[in-house]
Each structure stands twice: as structure tokens, then as C-alpha cells.
């Protein structure tokens, strides 16, 4: 079943890419600074959060700017992918009601659009890395794996949200609140070690915490990702993806009539 579906998706790869790239272009089509808005957004966020948290909260972390920026970029990807994923079905009524292709293509392509935007953003991060002369190490080979896990989490959530949003329109408002809370509940601004052992355990239930920590370890601090973190994030990502697909498959047959 799953294998067959993957083959079908492979046959539709051209469509997935065309839709994703089209959305990406569309986003910047009518703005003067074009793609550079993408770079500006995380930079502005970085400046504000850096000023507040390095002075006010007195957080002592090596390469705090990079620590913060990487967290922001990774979280932004999840936030953007799921927010766009929410409307993947509802936002394209004619593609759902007038033609047939596997509907998850719409969710997949919206996640890829978000990925394209994030790749662009990460140019800022690369520039920072160079400016701070952060040493690189062979541990970077973990990075693709971490990013794949992040993508799977985003895709699983997008699938479930896209399907639910067709039937319950306030899912989008609820999700906005969840993302807002998640930004502060995930160790993006602070290292999880500022908390006591008990509290840490609760924070580390969040798979995004593990993904962001693993990314920081390997990219900024030249240490291998913790095997426990990777394993936990991997299992969580696969579970989220499976649940997302199950929710999507449950609602999918009624998309066309419910919209």
C-alpha cells in the first residue's frame, strides 16, 4: 500500500514540484524587494530577541546569536509549513473539485514551498557562520537526517491540519495559538539546561526540542547529535507522519463535497 502510494507520488513528482515552485514564486511576485523579504524577516526577529534575551535575561550561551538564529529558522519552517499546509486543501477549491490527483500532493507541495523559503532564509545563517568563524566538522553529515525528520514532522502535521480545516474552520485559529505557545515552550531562545531535571524531562517530550538541539550540536558546536535525541525525534516523526496520513485518509473522500 504505502510503497504503491510512494510510486504514485513519484509519478506525480513533476506536478508536486510545479505547484511548490509556483507558490514560491507567487509569494514574492508583487513585492519590490522580492526574495529578500525572506532574509529580512529572520534577521529582524534575531535582532529583537537577541537584544532582549542576551541583556535582559542574561543567558550565557556560546555563539548565542547563531544558537538563536538556527532555532528561529528551524521553528519558522515548521510554523510556515503547517500554516500553509492548513490551507493546502481549502485554498485550492478548483483543484479538489474539478480534477483528480492524490490530494496529499497539495499538502506535500505546500511543505516544499515552505522548505524553499527556509532554504533561502538559511543563507543568512550561513553568512553568520562565516562571520563568526565557527569551525565546521564531519558531524555535519547528521544535518540532512535531522532536516528530513523535521520535514516529516511538518508534513504529518500539515496533512492532519489540512484535512481537519476543511471540516472545522476554527482549526486555523487554534493552530495559531499552539504555534505561538510552541515557540516559547521549545528551547529556541534558551538552552533546555536552564531548567531543573524534572522540568527538563517535560520539555524534552517535544520532538521539536530534540530536532533543534541535534541541529545545534552538529552545526554550531561540532559535536555528534545525541543518539537518544535522534532516535526519539525519528520515532516521533514517523508516528506524526502516520497519524497525519491516517487523519487525512479518513477525511479525504469527502473533501470535494464539503468545500
Amino acid at each position, binding site marked *: 500500500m504505502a510503497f504503491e502510494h510512494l510510486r504514485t507520488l513519484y509519478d506525480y513528482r513533476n506536478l508536486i514540484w510545479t505547484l511548490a515552485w*509556483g507558490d514560491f514564486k507567487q509569494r514574492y511576485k508583487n513585492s519590490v524587494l522580492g526574495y529578500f523579504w525572506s532574509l529580512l524577516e529572520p534577521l529582524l526577529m534575531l535582532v529583537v530577541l537577541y537584544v532582549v534575551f542576551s541583556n535582559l535575561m542574561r543567558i550565557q550561551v556560546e555563539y548565542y546569536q547563531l544558537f538563536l538564529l538556527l532555532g528561529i529558522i528551524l521553528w519558522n519552517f515548521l510554523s510556515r509549513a503547517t500554516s500553509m499546509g492548513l490551507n493546502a486543501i481549502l485554498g485550492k477549491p478548483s483543484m479538489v473539485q*474539478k*480534477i483528480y490527483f492524490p490530494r496529499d500532493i497539495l499538502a506535500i507541495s505546500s511543505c516544499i514551498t515552505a522548505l524553499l523559503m527556509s532554504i533561502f532564509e538559511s543563507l543568512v545563517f550561513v553568512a553568520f557562520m562565516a562571520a563568526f568563524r565557527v569551525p565546521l566538522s564531519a558531524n555535519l553529515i547528521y544535518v540532512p537526517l535531522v532536516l528530513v525528520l523535521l520535514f516529516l514532522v511538518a508534513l504529518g502535521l500539515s496533512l492532519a491540519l489540512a484535512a481537519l480545516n476543511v471540516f472545522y*474552520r476554527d482549526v486555523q485559529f487554534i493552530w495559531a495559538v499552539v504555534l505561538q505557545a510552541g515557540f516559547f515552550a521549545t528551547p529556541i531562545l534558551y538552552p533546555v539546561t536552564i531548567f531543573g531535571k524534572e522540568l527538563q524531562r517535560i520539555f524534552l517530550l517535544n520532538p521539536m526540542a530534540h530536532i533543534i538541539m541535534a541541529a545545534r550540536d552538529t552545526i554550531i558546536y561540532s559535536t555528534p547529535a545525541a543518539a537518544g535525541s535522534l532516535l526519539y525525534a525519528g520515532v516521533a516523526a514517523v508516528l506524526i507522519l502516520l497519524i497525519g496520513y491516517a487523519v487525512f485518509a479518513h477525511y479525504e473522500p469527502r473533501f470535494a463535497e464539503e468545500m
Partner: protein
Amino acid sequence: MSVIDVEHVGKVFRIPHEKRTTVFEALTGLLRPTDYETFPALRDVTFSVEEGEMLGIIGENGSGKSTLLKILAGIMRPTSGTVSVNRRLTPFLELGVGFNPDFTAVENIRTYATIMGLSKREINDKVDEILAFAGLETFRDAKLKNFSSGMQVRLAFSTAIQTDPEILLMDEVLAVGDMEFQQKCMDVLNRYRNEGVTIVFVSHDLGSVRRFCDRTLLLNHGEQVALDETDVVIDRYVYGKMAEEPVAPAAEAASRGNMKVEITGVTFFNKFGAESTRFNAFDPMTVRIFYSARERIAGPVFGIALYSERGEHLYGTNTELKDVSIGYISGEGHIDLRIDRIPMLAGRFLLTVAVHTHSGERYDWQDKAYSFDVIPTGRDAGLFDIPCIWRR
């Protein structure tokens, strides 16, 4: 060999009395039983389409035609029954799916062609051809939002027909556009048919259905009424409806005549001898005028006059002009006017019926009190058919 098999397909839409579209409503709604009406859009539809065949689907608005197409296309799932499609299927339910006004003509061609299942290489090869066919070569890099709607339709159509379907589903896409565009559509349809593409064609245009479709399925309120040779089914559709009650003349009896003879009704009969108010162009028709004479009336003259819907007087005749003399009438009776071939092409026509004396004194006169519809069977334009042939 059949390429589409539809077996006992039913589709029921649930229409909730209060639509729960928010989570809050869904949660509070759990306590109360869901209150909804069901609307059967399709009931027990069974048919199959042979390879290379062209099947028409006709029926009134709301009879389930589009729902059936969407089920065939996989867009909706049937509530009951099974559908199996054994060939690559291309739906033309709407032209220009995924068109983006901010993108250029070429960009939109690429996106739309991809959605319609063309490969990258095919698209690269065909972009110029598509633009040429749409007559939009000079607008290659213009944004779609600056196109007129006619240009957009042409662009969409030119792109859509580049697909290489094995089964084609066509909804009313042909209903848009001007005469020239419709002609292009028909040519393409013909080309596909000659190439042996299996086509399922939904249309209100009975003329096109008659010209193209081998067999036709008639739906009425979601039920399969007939599935047979196209001519048979269209006759069934046109003549199957019960004759509508003619609108009673509002005029006062006094303005109608002295009512010594009253016209009590008019019915139209089709070629099968059944009552109808809809007729195929060029079919025979019988107009039966029922009268009731209060006393013995000698030498009455019955007449009719025919008007277009806009009130233009098209034709008039009576028994006297046709040298038919009626000795006398008394009591109830009827008189028939037999039309061998309805010469009108299409539209609604109004009928005036009258009975009067030789000198023109009215017994009864009902102005445009009855009407019937003529359904087109050919493609000639205008109000009337003129028998003619071309020669050179």
C-alpha cells in the same frame, strides 16, 4: 470491451440543518443528535462504456449528471455501488484549473499542462503550438490577469487538448465562448472520436448529443431513466415529460367572444400519439382543440395563430382558408390540426386559438394562451428551417 463499468452506483449528500464548521460547534453538537437531511443525488445507476464509444448523459438541471461525472473522475466517492475505470482518464470539467492571474501565459501553460498530466518534455515541445492554436503568440509573456476572459478560455482549451486521453470526460465546457470557439471545440471532439478515444459527454445541447453520441443515458432526479441509442433516448427525454398545464387565459370572457362556443382546452400530441409540450424540430405534431358548443352552431370557423416568444406573428390559418367547411357543431368535441413537420428550429412558441363565424364574429378567442417548446436537432441558426441545398 468495456472501459468504464458503473454498477448500482448511488450518491447521497448529507445536508445538515445547522452546519457545524467549527470545533466548538462540533463539541457542543456531540450532546445532541446530528440533525440532517439526506439528498439522494444518484440512485442505482448502472451502465458500462465500451472502448471507443461516445456516451452522452442528458437530463434536467439537478438530475445528477455532474455528480456522476465527478464520481467517474474520482473526485467524489459513491455512497454505494462500484465504479471501475480501466484506462487513463482525463476530465474536462472546468477549463483552466490552477490558472494564476499573476503568471504569464507560458507559466500558466506549464502549470496547467502539468496538472493535466503532461510530462515536462511534452510541455516544452508543445508550448509554441499551444500559443499558436490559441492565437496568442504575441502575448507569450503577458500576465494572465491582463487577458480577456475569452483569451483565457482559449489558452486553457488549447492547453487541455494537448493531453492524450484514453477516456475523456466532458462537462459543459463547450457552453462557453463564441460560435467560432464552439466550432473549434466540436472539431477537437470529432478528432478525439475519430482517434478512438472513449468519451463521456454531458450536455444540455441535445443537437450536439444527437450528432456525436452513440448511446445516451438519461437521468431524472438521480435515477437512470433510459440508456439506449441516442435518438431513442432523446425522444424519450423530449416527449417523456408530462404535458404542462397550459396557462389559463386571463382575459375576461367578454373580451374573448360571445362564448356560444367555448374552447375548453388545447393539447399537443407528438409522433407517438402522446401528449407533450416539447417537440424535436422537424417532428410531426398534432394540435387538438377541444370545444364545447352551448347550442347548435352552423358553419363555425376554427383558426390558430402562431407567435414567437417575443410576440412576432409567425403564421396564421383557419379552416375557411384551408377550404374545410364544418357543417355544424353542438355539444362537446374536438378538432385536430395536423402538422407533418415542425419547421421551427428552436425556442418557445405561443399559440392563439379562436372560433368564429364566417363574417368574423367571435365565439371564443384565446390570445397566446398556449405554448410549446421546440428542441433543436440540427445546427442551423435562426427561427425557421428553409429546405435548401448548396450546389456549385
